[in-house]
Protein backbone atom coordinates (compact mmCIF):
# COMPACT_ATOMS: atom_id res chain seq x y z
CA UNK A 1 0.00 0.00 0.00
CA UNK A 2 1.36 3.34 -0.93
CA UNK A 3 1.70 5.67 1.98
CA UNK A 4 -0.69 8.49 2.46
CA UNK A 5 1.85 11.26 2.02
CA UNK A 6 1.87 10.55 -1.66
CA UNK A 7 -1.76 11.35 -1.89
CA UNK A 8 -2.52 14.89 -2.75
CA UNK A 9 -5.87 16.46 -3.13
CA UNK A 10 -6.75 18.16 -6.39
CA UNK A 11 -7.88 21.68 -6.03
CA UNK A 12 -4.93 22.48 -3.81
CA UNK A 13 -2.29 22.51 -6.46
CA UNK A 14 -2.67 25.32 -8.90
CA UNK A 15 0.35 24.15 -10.83
CA UNK A 16 -0.31 21.20 -13.06
CA UNK A 17 3.10 19.69 -12.59
CA UNK A 18 2.40 19.14 -8.92
CA UNK A 19 -0.59 16.93 -9.56
CA UNK A 20 -0.29 13.59 -7.91
CA UNK A 21 0.57 10.55 -9.88
CA UNK A 22 -1.74 7.76 -8.89
CA UNK A 23 -0.83 4.39 -10.15
CA UNK A 24 -2.35 1.01 -9.82
CA UNK A 25 -0.96 -0.83 -6.93
CA UNK A 26 0.13 -4.37 -6.47
CA UNK A 27 -2.09 -5.20 -3.55
CA UNK A 28 -5.63 -4.26 -4.24
CA UNK A 29 -8.94 -4.56 -2.51
CA UNK A 30 -11.66 -6.47 -4.27
CA UNK A 31 -15.25 -5.65 -3.57
CA UNK A 32 -18.56 -6.71 -5.01
CA UNK A 33 -21.31 -4.19 -5.48
CA UNK A 34 -24.55 -4.95 -3.69
CA UNK A 35 -27.16 -2.90 -5.49
CA UNK A 36 -29.83 -3.56 -2.88
CA UNK A 37 -27.71 -2.24 -0.05
CA UNK A 38 -26.05 0.42 -2.13
CA UNK A 39 -22.70 -0.66 -0.76
CA UNK A 40 -19.70 -2.72 -1.83
CA UNK A 41 -19.01 -5.96 0.00
CA UNK A 42 -15.29 -6.35 0.60
CA UNK A 43 -14.11 -9.72 -0.69
CA UNK A 44 -10.35 -9.30 -0.52
CA UNK A 45 -8.43 -6.85 1.53
CA UNK A 46 -4.81 -6.00 2.05
CA UNK A 47 -2.87 -3.56 4.10
CA UNK A 48 -4.31 -1.49 6.92
CA UNK A 49 -6.55 1.13 5.38
CA UNK A 50 -9.62 -1.02 5.89
CA UNK A 51 -9.19 -0.64 9.64
CA UNK A 52 -10.58 2.86 9.46
CA UNK A 53 -13.06 2.39 6.67
CA UNK A 54 -16.30 0.72 5.94
CA UNK A 55 -18.95 -0.78 8.16
CA UNK A 56 -19.38 -4.27 9.51
CA UNK A 57 -22.64 -6.09 9.26
CA UNK A 58 -23.23 -9.82 9.89
CA UNK A 59 -19.48 -10.44 9.84
CA UNK A 60 -19.17 -8.86 6.44
CA UNK A 61 -17.27 -5.73 5.62
CA UNK A 62 -18.88 -3.12 3.41
CA UNK A 63 -17.57 0.07 1.82
CA UNK A 64 -19.83 3.00 1.02
CA UNK A 65 -19.87 4.36 -2.49
CA UNK A 66 -17.60 7.23 -1.49
CA UNK A 67 -15.07 4.89 0.10
CA UNK A 68 -15.26 2.65 -2.95
CA UNK A 69 -14.67 5.48 -5.36
CA UNK A 70 -11.88 6.92 -3.23
CA UNK A 71 -10.00 3.64 -3.29
CA UNK A 72 -10.81 3.00 -6.94
CA UNK A 73 -9.45 6.41 -7.94
CA UNK A 74 -6.20 5.49 -6.27
CA UNK A 75 -5.97 2.17 -8.01
CA UNK A 76 -6.46 0.45 -4.70
CA UNK A 77 -9.77 -1.25 -5.36
CA UNK A 78 -11.43 -3.33 -8.05
CA UNK A 79 -15.20 -3.20 -7.97
CA UNK A 80 -17.03 -6.19 -9.38
CA UNK A 81 -20.65 -6.85 -10.12
CA UNK A 82 -22.50 -10.14 -9.49
CA UNK A 83 -21.07 -11.51 -12.72
CA UNK A 84 -17.51 -10.58 -11.71
CA UNK A 85 -17.33 -7.87 -14.35
CA UNK A 86 -15.08 -5.05 -13.28
CA UNK A 87 -16.69 -1.60 -13.01
CA UNK A 88 -14.83 1.08 -14.88
CA UNK A 89 -13.88 4.22 -13.00
CA UNK A 90 -16.32 6.04 -15.23
CA UNK A 91 -19.11 3.75 -14.05
CA UNK A 92 -18.34 4.49 -10.44
CA UNK A 93 -18.21 8.24 -11.00
CA UNK A 94 -21.61 7.96 -12.60
CA UNK A 95 -22.94 6.17 -9.54
CA UNK A 96 -21.80 8.99 -7.32
CA UNK A 97 -23.03 11.71 -9.64
CA UNK A 98 -26.46 10.10 -9.73
CA UNK A 99 -26.48 10.20 -5.94
CA UNK A 100 -28.61 7.07 -5.54
CA UNK A 101 -26.42 5.50 -2.91
CA UNK A 102 -26.39 8.12 -0.21
CA UNK A 103 -23.54 10.21 -1.51
CA UNK A 104 -23.59 12.95 -4.09
CA UNK A 105 -20.70 14.52 -5.94
CA UNK A 106 -20.40 17.44 -3.50
CA UNK A 107 -20.16 15.10 -0.55
CA UNK A 108 -17.67 12.93 -2.33
CA UNK A 109 -15.34 15.86 -2.91
CA UNK A 110 -15.42 16.76 0.76
CA UNK A 111 -14.90 13.10 1.68
CA UNK A 112 -11.97 12.74 -0.65
CA UNK A 113 -10.32 15.95 0.53
CA UNK A 114 -10.31 14.95 4.17
CA UNK A 115 -9.52 11.31 3.53
CA UNK A 116 -6.47 12.27 1.48
CA UNK A 117 -5.18 14.25 4.43
CA UNK A 118 -5.43 11.23 6.67
CA UNK A 119 -8.66 11.95 8.51
CA UNK A 120 -10.99 9.10 9.30
CA UNK A 121 -14.28 9.88 7.63
CA UNK A 122 -17.51 8.02 8.20
CA UNK A 123 -20.96 8.72 6.93
CA UNK A 124 -22.92 10.52 9.61
CA UNK A 125 -25.63 8.47 11.21
CA UNK A 126 -24.31 5.07 10.27
CA UNK A 127 -22.87 2.93 13.07
CA UNK A 128 -19.53 1.27 12.33
CA UNK A 129 -20.77 -2.02 13.72
CA UNK A 130 -23.98 -3.36 15.16
CA UNK A 131 -22.62 -4.66 18.38
CA UNK A 132 -24.81 -4.12 21.41
CA UNK A 133 -22.38 -1.92 23.24
CA UNK A 134 -21.61 0.73 20.67
CA UNK A 135 -22.92 3.42 22.96
CA UNK A 136 -20.09 5.61 21.78
CA UNK A 137 -21.79 5.89 18.43
CA UNK A 138 -25.19 6.85 19.69
CA UNK A 139 -24.77 10.45 20.73
CA UNK A 140 -23.80 11.46 17.25
CA UNK A 141 -26.29 9.34 15.39
CA UNK A 142 -29.49 11.26 15.35
CA UNK A 143 -31.18 8.50 13.39
CA UNK A 144 -30.60 6.40 16.50
CA UNK A 145 -31.71 3.15 15.01
CA UNK A 146 -32.46 1.04 18.02
CA UNK A 147 -30.48 -2.11 18.30
CA UNK A 148 -32.62 -5.15 18.69
CA UNK A 149 -31.90 -8.79 18.13
CA UNK A 150 -35.41 -9.40 16.98
CA UNK A 151 -35.22 -7.00 14.02
CA UNK A 152 -33.76 -8.69 10.99
CA UNK A 153 -30.38 -7.46 9.91
CA UNK A 154 -31.40 -6.71 6.39
CA UNK A 155 -34.42 -4.61 7.42
CA UNK A 156 -32.16 -2.57 9.65
CA UNK A 157 -29.73 -2.10 6.81
CA UNK A 158 -32.44 -0.90 4.52
CA UNK A 159 -33.43 1.64 7.13
CA UNK A 160 -29.88 2.82 7.46
CA UNK A 161 -29.38 3.07 3.72
CA UNK A 162 -32.60 4.88 3.17
CA UNK A 163 -31.96 7.38 5.96
CA UNK A 164 -28.50 8.13 4.65
CA UNK A 165 -29.97 8.45 1.21
CA UNK A 166 -32.66 10.81 2.40
CA UNK A 167 -30.12 12.83 4.32
CA UNK A 168 -27.96 13.43 1.34
CA UNK A 169 -30.91 14.26 -0.83
CA UNK A 170 -32.70 16.55 1.53
CA UNK A 171 -33.61 19.95 0.30
CA UNK A 172 -32.48 21.78 3.42
CA UNK A 173 -29.54 24.08 3.13
CA UNK A 174 -27.44 22.26 5.69
CA UNK A 175 -27.02 18.53 5.94
CA UNK A 176 -24.96 16.49 8.34
CA UNK A 177 -22.73 14.55 6.01
CA UNK A 178 -19.78 12.96 7.78
CA UNK A 179 -18.43 12.12 11.19
CA UNK A 180 -14.74 12.90 11.13
CA UNK A 181 -11.95 11.70 13.40
CA UNK A 182 -8.51 13.20 13.49
CA UNK A 183 -5.77 10.99 12.08
CA UNK A 184 -5.21 8.49 14.81
CA UNK A 185 -3.27 5.26 14.75
CA UNK A 186 -5.15 4.03 17.79
CA UNK A 187 -8.52 4.22 16.13
CA UNK A 188 -10.60 1.07 16.57
CA UNK A 189 -13.77 0.42 14.67
CA UNK A 190 -14.98 -1.57 17.63
CA UNK A 191 -14.90 1.50 19.83
CA UNK A 192 -14.44 4.62 17.80
CA UNK A 193 -15.62 7.08 20.43
CA UNK A 194 -17.24 10.37 19.54
CA UNK A 195 -16.04 11.93 16.32
CA UNK A 196 -13.83 14.97 16.54
CA UNK A 197 -16.27 16.89 14.46
CA UNK A 198 -19.29 16.50 12.21
CA UNK A 199 -18.97 17.88 8.73
CA UNK A 200 -22.02 19.59 7.26
CA UNK A 201 -22.38 20.56 3.67
CA UNK A 202 -24.05 23.90 3.13
CA UNK A 203 -25.40 25.19 -0.12
CA UNK A 204 -25.66 28.73 1.24
CA UNK A 205 -24.00 30.41 4.21
CA UNK A 206 -25.88 29.11 7.24
CA UNK A 207 -28.11 31.19 9.41
CA UNK A 208 -27.69 31.34 13.17
CA UNK A 209 -30.83 29.27 13.68
CA UNK A 210 -29.76 26.57 11.25
CA UNK A 211 -26.44 26.27 13.03
CA UNK A 212 -28.06 26.15 16.45
CA UNK A 213 -30.41 23.41 15.33
CA UNK A 214 -27.58 21.32 14.01
CA UNK A 215 -25.45 21.89 17.08
CA UNK A 216 -28.26 20.52 19.18
CA UNK A 217 -28.52 17.45 17.01
CA UNK A 218 -24.81 16.86 17.34
CA UNK A 219 -24.88 16.80 21.11
CA UNK A 220 -21.67 18.59 21.90
CA UNK A 221 -19.65 17.30 18.97
CA UNK A 222 -18.28 20.34 17.17
CA UNK A 223 -19.62 21.26 13.79
CA UNK A 224 -17.68 22.21 10.71
CA UNK A 225 -19.39 23.61 7.68
CA UNK A 226 -18.24 22.91 4.20
CA UNK A 227 -19.01 24.53 0.91
CA UNK A 228 -17.88 22.69 -2.16
CA UNK A 229 -19.42 24.64 -4.98
CA UNK A 230 -16.72 27.27 -5.35
CA UNK A 231 -13.74 25.16 -4.42
CA UNK A 232 -13.51 23.47 -1.08
CA UNK A 233 -13.89 25.68 1.98
CA UNK A 234 -14.42 24.57 5.53
CA UNK A 235 -15.57 26.75 8.39
CA UNK A 236 -16.16 26.33 12.05
CA UNK A 237 -19.23 27.98 13.39
CA UNK A 238 -19.65 28.47 17.08
CA UNK A 239 -20.73 30.78 19.77
CA UNK A 240 -17.52 31.79 21.42
CA UNK A 241 -16.85 30.12 24.70
CA UNK A 242 -13.59 29.23 26.26
CA UNK A 243 -12.85 27.53 29.52
CA UNK A 244 -10.66 28.95 32.14
CA UNK A 245 -9.43 27.02 35.06
CA UNK A 246 -10.30 28.54 38.37
CA UNK A 247 -8.57 29.70 40.48
CA UNK A 248 -6.50 30.66 37.49
CA UNK A 249 -3.81 28.08 37.60
CA UNK A 250 -3.14 28.23 33.94
CA UNK A 251 -4.91 29.34 30.86
CA UNK A 252 -5.96 27.19 27.98
CA UNK A 253 -8.23 28.15 25.20
CA UNK A 254 -10.60 25.65 23.76
CA UNK A 255 -13.70 26.22 21.81
CA UNK A 256 -16.17 23.67 22.94
CA UNK A 257 -17.27 21.59 25.83
CA UNK A 258 -16.44 18.34 24.12
CA UNK A 259 -12.83 19.28 23.50
CA UNK A 260 -12.54 20.50 27.06
CA UNK A 261 -13.79 17.16 28.29
CA UNK A 262 -11.37 15.31 26.05
CA UNK A 263 -8.39 17.23 27.28
CA UNK A 264 -9.29 16.85 30.88
CA UNK A 265 -10.72 13.39 30.40
CA UNK A 266 -8.48 11.80 32.95
CA UNK A 267 -9.21 14.42 35.54
CA UNK A 268 -12.90 14.31 34.79
CA UNK A 269 -12.98 10.59 35.30
CA UNK A 270 -11.36 10.80 38.66
CA UNK A 271 -13.78 13.56 39.56
CA UNK A 272 -11.00 15.94 40.34
CA UNK A 273 -12.37 18.26 37.69
CA UNK A 274 -15.87 19.26 36.82
CA UNK A 275 -16.62 21.17 33.70
CA UNK A 276 -19.61 23.37 33.56
CA UNK A 277 -20.69 25.73 30.88
CA UNK A 278 -21.26 29.24 32.05
CA UNK A 279 -22.88 31.79 29.88
CA UNK A 280 -22.50 35.43 30.64
CA UNK A 281 -25.68 37.37 30.53
CA UNK A 282 -25.69 39.57 27.46
CA UNK A 283 -24.39 43.06 28.00
CA UNK A 284 -22.46 41.94 30.98
CA UNK A 285 -19.41 43.97 31.78
CA UNK A 286 -18.22 41.46 34.28
CA UNK A 287 -17.05 37.97 34.11
CA UNK A 288 -16.57 35.28 36.67
CA UNK A 289 -19.68 36.32 38.43
CA UNK A 290 -20.18 33.30 40.63
CA UNK A 291 -23.09 31.06 39.90
CA UNK A 292 -24.81 29.36 42.75
CA UNK A 293 -22.69 26.36 43.50
CA UNK A 294 -19.83 27.85 41.53
CA UNK A 295 -17.50 26.91 44.31
CA UNK A 296 -17.66 23.38 43.01
CA UNK A 297 -16.87 24.38 39.46
CA UNK A 298 -13.33 23.93 38.24
CA UNK A 299 -13.65 25.12 34.73
CA UNK A 300 -15.80 27.96 33.63
CA UNK A 301 -16.68 28.44 30.03
CA UNK A 302 -16.97 32.08 29.26
CA UNK A 303 -17.28 34.24 26.25
CA UNK A 304 -13.93 35.83 25.54
CA UNK A 305 -15.52 38.49 23.43
CA UNK A 306 -17.31 39.79 26.45
CA UNK A 307 -14.24 39.92 28.57
CA UNK A 308 -12.39 43.07 29.29
CA UNK A 309 -8.95 41.55 29.32
CA UNK A 310 -7.38 44.39 31.07
CA UNK A 311 -9.20 43.41 34.18
CA UNK A 312 -7.59 40.03 34.12
CA UNK A 313 -4.21 40.10 35.72
CA UNK A 314 -1.47 37.97 34.46
CA UNK A 315 0.66 36.69 37.20
CA UNK A 316 3.61 34.51 36.36
CA UNK A 317 1.92 33.36 33.18
CA UNK A 318 -1.32 32.57 34.92
CA UNK A 319 -4.65 34.20 34.58
CA UNK A 320 -6.51 35.36 37.58
CA UNK A 321 -9.78 37.06 37.88
CA UNK A 322 -9.91 40.53 39.23
CA UNK A 323 -12.30 40.66 42.15
Amino acid at each position, binding site marked *: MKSEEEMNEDG*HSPLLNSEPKLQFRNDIYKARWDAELGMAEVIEKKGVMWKTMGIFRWSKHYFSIEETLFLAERGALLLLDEKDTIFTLKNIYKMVAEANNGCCWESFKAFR*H*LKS*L*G*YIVARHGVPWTLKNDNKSCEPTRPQGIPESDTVSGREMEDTISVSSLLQSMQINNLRLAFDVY*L*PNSNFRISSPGDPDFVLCIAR*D*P*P*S*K*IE*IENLERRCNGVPL*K*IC*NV*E*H*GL*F*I*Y*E*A*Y*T*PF*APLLVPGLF*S*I*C*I*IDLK*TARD*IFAEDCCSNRLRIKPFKLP*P*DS*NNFARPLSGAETVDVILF*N*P*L*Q*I*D*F*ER*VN*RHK*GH*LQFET
Partner: protein
Amino acid sequence: MVVFGTRWKGKGFEAFALSNPMSKIVSRLQNSLTESKASGLLMDRVVDVIDIVFVLLEVELEQANLLDQACFGCHIVTACKDKKHYELSLEEAFYLCHSLKCLEVVWRDKCLENDELWEFMTSRRKLFPIFYKAYSHLRVKNWVVKSEIKYGVDFVAYRHHPSLVHSKYAVIVLKGNEDITRLMAWPSFHAILRLEDGVAKTLLLLHINNVHDRVSSSCFEHYIVEEQILARWNPEQCHEEHITGSWI
Protein backbone atom coordinates in the same frame (compact mmCIF):
# COMPACT_ATOMS: atom_id res chain seq x y z
CA MET B 1 -8.91 22.11 17.36
CA VAL B 2 -8.38 25.79 17.15
CA VAL B 3 -6.27 27.91 19.40
CA PHE B 4 -8.43 30.83 20.33
CA GLY B 5 -5.57 33.19 20.72
CA THR B 6 -4.06 36.48 19.84
CA ARG B 7 -1.07 36.24 17.60
CA TRP B 8 1.40 39.03 18.06
CA LYS B 9 3.46 40.37 15.22
CA GLY B 10 6.76 40.35 17.02
CA LYS B 11 8.64 39.23 20.05
CA GLY B 12 8.02 41.50 22.96
CA PHE B 13 4.89 42.96 21.41
CA GLU B 14 2.68 41.13 23.83
CA ALA B 15 4.63 42.46 26.79
CA PHE B 16 4.52 45.92 25.28
CA ALA B 17 0.77 45.70 24.84
CA LEU B 18 0.32 44.50 28.39
CA SER B 19 2.29 47.38 29.77
CA ASN B 20 0.50 49.83 27.50
CA PRO B 21 -3.07 48.71 27.67
CA MET B 22 -5.51 50.22 25.22
CA SER B 23 -7.66 51.53 28.05
CA LYS B 24 -4.80 53.74 29.23
CA ILE B 25 -4.17 55.01 25.73
CA VAL B 26 -7.84 55.83 25.23
CA SER B 27 -7.92 57.47 28.62
CA ARG B 28 -4.99 59.72 27.71
CA LEU B 29 -6.71 60.62 24.47
CA GLN B 30 -9.89 61.40 26.35
CA ASN B 31 -8.08 63.71 28.77
CA SER B 32 -6.19 65.47 26.05
CA LEU B 33 -9.24 66.14 23.92
CA THR B 34 -11.26 67.28 26.91
CA GLU B 35 -8.58 69.71 28.02
CA SER B 36 -8.33 71.27 24.60
CA LYS B 37 -12.12 71.40 24.26
CA ALA B 38 -11.84 69.51 21.00
CA SER B 39 -14.47 70.22 18.47
CA GLY B 40 -15.27 68.32 15.32
CA LEU B 41 -17.01 69.58 12.26
CA LEU B 42 -19.86 67.47 10.97
CA MET B 43 -19.51 67.41 7.22
CA ASP B 44 -22.36 66.30 5.12
CA ARG B 45 -23.00 66.50 1.45
CA VAL B 46 -24.95 64.52 -1.03
CA VAL B 47 -22.94 63.77 -4.14
CA ASP B 48 -25.14 62.21 -6.77
CA VAL B 49 -26.88 59.65 -4.65
CA ILE B 50 -24.06 59.09 -2.21
CA ASP B 51 -24.46 60.62 1.20
CA ILE B 52 -21.10 61.73 2.50
CA VAL B 53 -21.12 62.17 6.24
CA PHE B 54 -18.10 62.33 8.46
CA VAL B 55 -16.62 64.45 11.20
CA LEU B 56 -13.51 66.49 10.52
CA LEU B 57 -11.22 66.94 13.48
CA GLU B 58 -8.29 69.29 13.61
CA VAL B 59 -5.82 68.54 16.40
CA GLU B 60 -2.39 69.36 17.77
CA LEU B 61 0.47 67.01 17.08
CA GLU B 62 0.36 65.42 20.51
CA GLN B 63 -3.33 64.61 20.14
CA ALA B 64 -2.74 63.29 16.66
CA ASN B 65 -0.30 60.86 18.16
CA LEU B 66 -2.89 59.69 20.66
CA LEU B 67 -5.54 59.35 17.98
CA ASP B 68 -3.18 57.11 16.03
CA GLN B 69 -2.28 55.04 19.05
CA ALA B 70 -5.91 54.54 19.97
CA CYS B 71 -6.92 54.02 16.35
CA PHE B 72 -9.57 56.65 16.08
CA GLY B 73 -10.05 58.36 12.78
CA CYS B 74 -8.24 58.34 9.52
CA HIS B 75 -5.37 60.77 9.14
CA ILE B 76 -5.67 63.15 6.20
CA VAL B 77 -2.26 64.02 4.83
CA THR B 78 -1.78 67.74 4.43
CA ALA B 79 1.13 70.13 4.15
CA CYS B 80 0.15 71.72 7.45
CA LYS B 81 3.02 71.48 9.94
CA ASP B 82 1.56 72.34 13.31
CA LYS B 83 -1.85 70.78 13.05
CA LYS B 84 -3.13 67.45 11.86
CA HIS B 85 -6.48 66.59 10.35
CA TYR B 86 -8.55 63.50 10.86
CA GLU B 87 -11.65 62.06 9.31
CA LEU B 88 -13.79 60.40 11.97
CA SER B 89 -16.52 57.93 11.10
CA LEU B 90 -19.98 58.43 12.58
CA GLU B 91 -19.40 55.69 15.12
CA GLU B 92 -16.04 57.05 16.18
CA ALA B 93 -17.36 60.58 16.51
CA PHE B 94 -20.38 59.51 18.49
CA TYR B 95 -18.27 57.32 20.76
CA LEU B 96 -15.91 60.18 21.56
CA CYS B 97 -18.90 62.41 22.10
CA HIS B 98 -21.32 60.25 23.99
CA SER B 99 -19.25 57.59 25.66
CA LEU B 100 -15.95 59.32 26.31
CA LYS B 101 -17.50 62.77 26.50
CA CYS B 102 -14.38 64.40 25.15
CA LEU B 103 -15.56 65.81 21.86
CA GLU B 104 -18.22 68.23 20.80
CA VAL B 105 -19.60 68.17 17.31
CA VAL B 106 -20.52 71.29 15.39
CA TRP B 107 -22.87 71.34 12.45
CA ARG B 108 -23.47 74.48 10.49
CA ASP B 109 -22.07 76.61 13.28
CA LYS B 110 -24.25 74.96 15.89
CA CYS B 111 -22.94 72.68 18.59
CA LEU B 112 -25.11 69.55 18.66
CA GLU B 113 -26.34 67.93 21.85
CA ASN B 114 -26.09 64.15 22.10
CA ASP B 115 -29.74 63.64 21.23
CA GLU B 116 -29.52 65.98 18.28
CA LEU B 117 -26.37 64.27 17.06
CA TRP B 118 -28.02 60.87 17.42
CA GLU B 119 -31.03 62.02 15.49
CA PHE B 120 -28.85 63.45 12.75
CA MET B 121 -26.80 60.31 12.37
CA THR B 122 -29.83 58.08 12.50
CA SER B 123 -31.59 60.10 9.88
CA ARG B 124 -28.62 59.82 7.55
CA ARG B 125 -27.97 56.15 8.21
CA LYS B 126 -30.94 54.04 9.09
CA LEU B 127 -28.73 51.30 10.48
CA PHE B 128 -26.60 53.65 12.55
CA PRO B 129 -28.11 52.49 15.88
CA ILE B 130 -27.16 48.88 15.37
CA PHE B 131 -23.77 49.70 13.94
CA TYR B 132 -23.08 51.98 16.84
CA LYS B 133 -24.16 49.34 19.32
CA ALA B 134 -21.74 46.88 17.75
CA TYR B 135 -18.93 49.43 17.69
CA SER B 136 -19.35 50.49 21.28
CA HIS B 137 -19.89 46.90 22.47
CA LEU B 138 -16.39 46.06 21.35
CA ARG B 139 -14.70 49.39 22.04
CA VAL B 140 -15.82 49.46 25.64
CA LYS B 141 -14.00 46.16 26.13
CA ASN B 142 -10.88 47.81 24.81
CA TRP B 143 -10.92 46.19 21.41
CA VAL B 144 -9.73 48.37 18.55
CA VAL B 145 -12.51 48.74 16.01
CA LYS B 146 -12.12 50.15 12.53
CA SER B 147 -14.59 50.53 9.72
CA GLU B 148 -13.53 48.39 6.80
CA ILE B 149 -16.25 48.65 4.24
CA LYS B 150 -13.78 48.09 1.46
CA TYR B 151 -13.39 44.48 2.55
CA GLY B 152 -17.06 43.84 2.38
CA VAL B 153 -17.50 43.71 6.12
CA ASP B 154 -18.73 46.32 8.56
CA PHE B 155 -15.77 46.50 10.96
CA VAL B 156 -12.46 44.88 11.71
CA ALA B 157 -11.67 44.32 15.38
CA TYR B 158 -8.20 43.89 16.88
CA ARG B 159 -7.07 42.99 20.36
CA HIS B 160 -4.68 45.94 20.42
CA HIS B 161 -3.09 48.22 17.85
CA PRO B 162 -3.06 46.61 14.37
CA SER B 163 0.69 47.09 14.14
CA LEU B 164 1.09 44.75 17.09
CA VAL B 165 -1.37 41.98 16.41
CA HIS B 166 -1.95 39.60 13.58
CA SER B 167 -5.25 38.17 14.52
CA LYS B 168 -8.35 40.12 13.98
CA TYR B 169 -12.03 39.62 13.50
CA ALA B 170 -13.96 40.68 10.47
CA VAL B 171 -17.19 41.95 11.98
CA ILE B 172 -20.60 41.93 10.38
CA VAL B 173 -23.53 43.48 12.16
CA LEU B 174 -26.98 41.99 11.77
CA LYS B 175 -30.26 43.18 13.08
CA GLY B 176 -31.98 40.57 15.21
CA ASN B 177 -31.71 37.11 13.80
CA GLU B 178 -31.39 38.47 10.31
CA ASP B 179 -30.20 35.91 7.90
CA ILE B 180 -26.69 36.49 6.63
CA THR B 181 -27.60 34.92 3.33
CA ARG B 182 -29.56 37.99 2.48
CA LEU B 183 -26.34 39.94 2.67
CA MET B 184 -23.81 37.48 1.37
CA ALA B 185 -23.36 34.41 -0.70
CA TRP B 186 -20.51 31.95 -0.24
CA PRO B 187 -18.02 33.64 -2.58
CA SER B 188 -18.03 36.69 -0.29
CA PHE B 189 -17.26 34.56 2.75
CA HIS B 190 -14.51 32.77 0.91
CA ALA B 191 -13.04 36.09 -0.16
CA ILE B 192 -13.16 37.69 3.27
CA LEU B 193 -11.78 34.70 5.09
CA ARG B 194 -9.06 33.64 2.69
CA LEU B 195 -6.40 31.67 4.45
CA GLU B 196 -3.55 33.71 3.06
CA ASP B 197 -3.68 37.50 3.05
CA GLY B 198 -7.39 37.58 3.69
CA VAL B 199 -8.96 40.25 5.84
CA ALA B 200 -9.11 37.91 8.77
CA LYS B 201 -9.48 34.25 9.51
CA THR B 202 -12.46 34.76 11.71
CA LEU B 203 -15.78 36.34 11.05
CA LEU B 204 -17.66 37.72 13.99
CA LEU B 205 -21.35 38.09 13.47
CA LEU B 206 -22.99 40.42 15.92
CA HIS B 207 -26.72 39.99 16.16
CA ILE B 208 -28.28 43.06 17.69
CA ASN B 209 -31.59 42.32 19.36
CA ASN B 210 -34.17 44.21 21.31
CA VAL B 211 -33.97 47.13 18.96
CA HIS B 212 -36.72 49.66 19.44
CA ASP B 213 -37.18 52.70 17.32
CA ARG B 214 -36.68 55.32 19.93
CA VAL B 215 -35.12 58.65 19.29
CA SER B 216 -33.12 59.11 22.43
CA SER B 217 -29.39 58.73 22.25
CA SER B 218 -29.33 56.19 25.03
CA CYS B 219 -31.91 53.89 23.55
CA PHE B 220 -29.18 51.67 22.21
CA GLU B 221 -28.13 50.81 25.74
CA HIS B 222 -31.00 48.37 25.92
CA TYR B 223 -30.00 46.52 22.82
CA ILE B 224 -28.69 43.03 23.29
CA VAL B 225 -25.69 41.72 21.41
CA GLU B 226 -25.24 38.06 20.59
CA GLU B 227 -22.02 36.88 19.10
CA GLN B 228 -21.48 34.14 16.63
CA ILE B 229 -18.21 33.14 15.03
CA LEU B 230 -17.46 31.68 11.65
CA ALA B 231 -13.79 30.83 11.28
CA ARG B 232 -11.98 29.42 8.35
CA TRP B 233 -10.59 25.98 9.09
CA ASN B 234 -7.62 24.50 7.32
CA PRO B 235 -7.60 20.71 7.55
CA GLU B 236 -3.98 20.59 6.51
CA GLN B 237 -2.86 22.58 9.51
CA CYS B 238 -5.05 20.98 12.03
CA HIS B 239 -3.06 17.92 12.93
CA GLU B 240 -0.26 19.51 14.78
CA GLU B 241 -2.08 22.20 16.62
CA HIS B 242 -2.40 21.70 20.28
CA ILE B 243 -4.32 23.69 22.74
CA THR B 244 -1.66 25.13 24.93
CA GLY B 245 -0.67 28.71 24.65
CA SER B 246 -1.86 31.97 26.04
CA TRP B 247 -4.61 33.74 24.34
CA ILE B 248 -4.75 37.24 25.60
